[in-house]
């Protein structure tokens, strides 16, 4: 093994620093270019096969939050977000009640008691080619 001269050692160290700096700078650049901002809030929800929801059923989907209704007219959905300030309403005898400020809605989502002054929002439900229900919030 040949002895490394002082000059060669310094040259090697310098080159090492340079390559390392370059590699880290490139890494930083890639990381910057690769940055993914937070995804937009989800607006489409796959609720699975339509046969999971028999006629007459009313199924709460808490993660949206929404209520999927399968009536004689077909599938429909109600947003369970209170139209007053946005709290999640809860099922109550004959309808829905907001736990924050006491608004009440009937089973169809119509306001029966303020402070909310608008009905619960209707959400679109479509059936995909694979017979899955897709809820559009």
């Amino acid at each position, binding site marked *: 093994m040949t002895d490394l001269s002082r000059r060669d050692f310094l040259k090697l160290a310098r080159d090492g620093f*340079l390559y390392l*700096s370059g590699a*880290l700078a490139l890494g930083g650049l890639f990381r910057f270019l690769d940055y993914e901002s937070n995804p937009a809030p989800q607006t489409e929800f796959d609720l699975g096969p339509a046969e999971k929801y028999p006629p007459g059923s009313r199924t709460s989907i808490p993660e949206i939050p929404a209520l999927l209704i399968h009536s004689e007219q077909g599938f429909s959905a109600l947003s369970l977000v209170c139209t007053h300030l*946005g709290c999640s309403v809860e099922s109550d005898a004959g309808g829905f009640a907001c736990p*924050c*400020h*006491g608004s009440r809605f009937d089973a169809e989502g119509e306001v029966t008691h303020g*402070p909310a002054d608008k009905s619960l929002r209707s959400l679109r439900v479509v059936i995909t080619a694979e017979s899955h229900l897709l809820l559009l919030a």
Partner: protein
Amino acid sequence: MRRLLPLASLLFLLTLLLAWWMNSRAPKPVELIPTLTGQPEYCLTCHADLPEISASHPVKTFGCVSCHGGERLALDADLAHSTMRGGANPSDLSVVEASCGGGNCHSGSEADDRHHIQRVLTSVQSTYAGAIASIRFTFGAQTDLTARFGISAVTDEHSQTGITSLAAFDPTSESNPSIQKFSGNCLTCHINAAPREGDVYARQTGCAACHTPLRLPQNSQNLGGVSRRDEGGGVHILTTAIPYTQCNACHNRGNYDLRTMTFIERSDYPTIRLSDHPTTRLQDYYQPISQFTLCEYTLDCVDCHTRSEVMGDGDLYSSQAEIQYVQCKTCHGTLTELPLTKTLTDPNDIAFRMAFLNPVLELKLGDTIIVTEKGEPLWNIRLLPSPSGEGTGVRAVYEMIGKATSQYFTFRPVMGTACEQKPDEQESQYCHACHAVER
């Protein structure tokens, strides 16, 4: 140049190392997108341990920024807090409209009785108009006791009291030294004043002066009635179950010395403690020179005094005495009259809204509650069903549930008793003559 390259490279590496080290120490950002705003905020990165402020203001719906302000995306504490409204108290009246207002919140319509901020801004709690008028009258600066000034200028276009506006009280325009002393010493006590120095006064202005009690109500589910300050934490609560200790923090804290025009704080004022035995309440909290009946020191102030008395009714008044109207007879009636009552038939009755916010009892349609002479509901007092009434010989019985304690009481009206009251002597001083407690 060629020689500087390794040095630049070394500096670059050190900078990267420093950046990595700082990044590794920073907390992992916690994002919240409140339903109300739909805008991400990162306050929970540091404040995830704060309890919900109230059932009506869940953080999932409101987030933090809609009430507190601040830089919602900042992860540096100083930057995040740099634009907060009102510091620790976003309900300070100087910023309350931005923090608590809005048509859907506390600047709602008068018809719905949701104009809380407007009512508070015109209330004597906020204007301090009575004290200012009284002092100016006493020292000859005005010829009668009608209020002309408030701590801030305020107008009431639909005045029912004849006072349509108050000008901002300007101490520098007063020539009498006693009025100037009053200005220097006594204007910090009202909820529209600049808060006094010190943590203990941090939330004694604005809505928080009443609704953020230093001692939690006994029926609070959070800490079992223990002051969070005693636990070394802050106070993050909004409640309508306001314990008497909160009222007494201002209303029993000392006396005015008119000779020196100063406020002398009581030396024996009880500190906030972990345990507060009710038997010591009379001695600790009530001034020796005054008299009190059993209910005046057993109940909480909010059990009898109404919203309009405390928060104002939207009109400007010249003194506290003009707006405070609840008397013993409001609940107990007189020898010839039972207390006024109302049977709840409308699900939109405001009594239900109040009971919803402080559910110490389950109010139902058909319940009969006591109402004041102005029609305000004392929704926590119900007439118990019994065969009482004229001709039955049975006296009515009312039940009362303490708003801050959930304690259960029953009482009967004065009618049918041997009480020696005179019909025109209904102020508490006359009741104290027989019913004041010994201490």
